[in-house]
């Protein structure tokens, strides 16, 4: 009988490096720093960890990416990858290992070292080996959401741009309170609206930071979590969904939704027993690779009804003091987006918030949190939705 993952696994330790243009660090350094912090936080030594997973897109192949710098001795170590959802994928594998009873303690690390490349923007190509295809930049692939959304819900270009800017404004306000974030200052709306265009209508201030960083998480079975700390955080749901990626060939897809996010959310809510996400969740970390992505996700994750997210954004519903705080740590936008690390970094903020350790960003009575991590482009992507809770057996 399938029991699901709810309340079977707990996070017992986490670490997160400062995110930024870490010219002082290679991928090895980031991995060592994050893993060391997580083990110290859990109060364990490396020998206690039974299995490791590392999520990274371009900063290493094979599990050796982790085992070599950490000098791990005689353990299973595996690299996993799902584009920008690699971090959550590493976490998911670690959770299943302990839930299956194969490991007692497992560690997942997400890492990305982007700033050694010297390129502007992400060095990721959608062009097939025969060369015959559109050479999208990543901003362009998400920018396609904007005209479709604006047209469908009656926003003119100017209003649409303001809605997007309001999302960037919120995330920078949040990041300004986060000592680990890449960008730590508030930015006013005028500066955001005037930022140079990357892919119409997205300006540079609508785009996540190109950032280096790593984060790590240690998990144990829920019933053993008390051995490591008095305040573990429980996994309520882990849902991953990949679609058929036919949105670029099927006129049925209308570019106002990210279908894998909607599907993963439905499954996660069913597993966690959530029937009204907007009121039952206390915070959410979502994949704001671009402002327009966050806008659309508010509807796919059922935080707003279809066609209403833009109004919620302007009303401040997702601000830190709003109905449902979204990206209280600054999100990909201002915390930055080291591709493989982001999924684990999202867990980190939830881990702090649910244990009342988020300092000036603390949300009152934080009991239930959601992470949404996305890998790919709007018409072809994998969504990973994780629900975490302060208490086992209860929402």
């Amino acid at each position, binding site marked *: 009988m399938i029991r699901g993952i709810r309340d079977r696994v707990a996070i017992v330790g986490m670490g997160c490096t400062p995110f930024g243009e870490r010219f002082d660090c290679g991928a090895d350094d980031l991995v060592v720093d994050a893993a060391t912090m997580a083990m110290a936080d859990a109060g364990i030594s490396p020998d206690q960890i039974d299995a490791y997973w590392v999520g990274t897109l371009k900063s290493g192949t094979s599990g050796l990416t982790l085992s070599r710098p950490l000098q791990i001795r005689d353990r299973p170590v595996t690299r996993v990858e799902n584009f920008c959802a690699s971090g959550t994928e590493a976490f998911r594998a670690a959770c299943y290992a302990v839930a299956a009873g194969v490991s007692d303690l497992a560690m997942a690390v997400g890492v990305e070292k982007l700033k050694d490349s010297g390129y502007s923007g992400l060095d990721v190509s959608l062009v097939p080996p025969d*060369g*015959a295809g559109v050479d999208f930049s990543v901003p362009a692939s998400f920018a*396609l959401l904007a005209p479709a959304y604006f047209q469908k819900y009656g926003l003119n270009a100017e209003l649409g741009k303001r809605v997007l800017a309001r999302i960037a404004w919120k995330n920078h306000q949040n990041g300004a309170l986060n000592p680990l974030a890449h960008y730590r200052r508030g930015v006013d709306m005028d500066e955001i609206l005037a930022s140079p265009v990357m892919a119409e209508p997205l300006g540079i201030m609508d785009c996540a930071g190109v950032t280096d960083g790593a984060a790590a998480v240690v998990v144990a079975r829920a019933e053993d979590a008390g051995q490591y700390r008095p305040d573990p955080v429980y996994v309520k749901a882990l849902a991953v969904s990949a679609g058929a990626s036919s949105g670029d060939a099927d006129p049925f897809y209308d570019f106002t939704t990210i279908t894998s996010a909607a599907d993963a959310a439905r499954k996660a809510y069913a597993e966690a027993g959530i029937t009204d996400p907007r009121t039952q969740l206390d915070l959410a970390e979502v994949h704001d690779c671009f402002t327009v992505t966050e806008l659309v996700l508010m509807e796919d994750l059922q935080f707003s009804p279809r066609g209403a997210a833009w109004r919620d954004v302007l009303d401040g519903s997702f601000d830190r003091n709003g109905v449902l705080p979204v990206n209280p740590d600054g999100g990909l936008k201002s915390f930055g987006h080291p591709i493989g690390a982001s999924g684990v970094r999202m867990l980190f903020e939830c881990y702090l918030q649910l244990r009342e350790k988020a300092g000036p960003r603390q949300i009152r009575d934080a009991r239930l949190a959601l992470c949404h991590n996305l890998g790919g482009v709007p018409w072809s992507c994998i969504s990973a939705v994780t629900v975490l809770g302060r208490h086992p057996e209860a929402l």
Partner: protein
Amino acid sequence: MAGILAFGAHVPVNRLEHVGIERTAATRRVAGPDEDSLTMAVGAALDCLRGSHRFQPDYVGFATTTPPYAEKQAAPILATALALPDETRTVDVGHSVRAGTTAMLTALDAVTAGSAHQALVCAADTRPWAPGSIEESASGDGAAALVLGKGDVVAEILGTVSLAADWNNQWRGPADPFVRTWEERFAPIEQYPPLVSAAVAKVLERAGLTPAGCHKLILYLPQPRANRRLAAQLGFRTDQILDHQLAGMGSAGAAHAGLALVAALESAQPGERLLLVAAGDGVDALLLQVTPRIRDFAPRQGFATALAQQRPIAYERYLHWRDLMAIAPPRRPTRPRPSAPAAWRKRLVNMAFCGARCRICGTAQFPPPRICIRCRARDEFEPLPFACQRGRVQTYTTDYLALSPDPPTPLAVVDFDGGGRAILEVTDCAPGDLRIGLPVEVTFRRLFAGESLIVYYWKARPVHGGTPA
């Protein structure tokens, strides 16, 4: 009698109005950075083959002085883009501005001998002129296509003459970036008159005609300014001479004679006789008579309609497109060379823009998958051509980051009228013209080259006039 069954043209939208540091006035067409002689030939061929009547050539001749490769035949690439069968005669004709008419004569021989039934001849050129040269401002880039055959011809070929000459007039060595020329007085005074006169005299005499019996003289000379005087010397009146600049096209090298013929045919009446003469390392002459069938044929868009689309560009942009002015590239990774096996497997998809229709549920899809995107049936597909389909923009953006010789790059999700969708670059379009619902068609273009292997693919462009396929 053999003759012309169909005709078509491709004219780049880009129009140069000033050249040089002094901004000398000019009127000429410039191939865009995603165009070359081959892409323009494909455009002209589709204009010709998919107009009012559909043609299926069994012979492809490609004529140019600027082929995409020094070694790798272009006519088979053209045949692939047109989804022609393996048993298609292919011939590249080059090295002279006379290549266009020579290709016509060779095709005519094949049709007359019966070894070809519908012979497609495409002539295209993007001749490289030194910045500041006289020719730079008067030269144009474009392509013409003709189908030669027997039966329901729109113009009969009454006679032909071909004379050869070893002229040091215009030439280009293998490593020369630009065409070299002798001073422009020499050939028009000493070389053209005797040979052009001889060719014209022979072709008219064999048909029992005089210059007065011709409605139009279409005279191509490598030095176009000598055109009028020579025509007068030959006994033609001013009103008989077709404008050598083709109303702003420019002097189009190997493509010129064909483009001029297309321009003449677009306004020709039944019974008119056209004398086509092209000089370059010799002289070719063709005498044609328009038939009543001219009223039944129309290309898909045609030369005049294509010429009406204009996008003025600055001289610096032209220099950059021709790699004559380097601009600091964006900090983006260079593209790897294309995989030959991958390109081979996808050749009908990439080169002929061929998709598929599911036999089980009828869904049109591009590119052709193994598993239907709608009903999930596996390997149940019929080929479905998309090259002549039209569609509308469903959503769009303009990419400022992508590597491009002409940034920013408009991109659109195109929903085809006949079903199916593709995400494509949009070319020949100002970013501000993009909108949801914009009608577009597809066009064959050049994306990039890796280790000299050129990647061709299709882009969308706004629809301008013409009849839907």
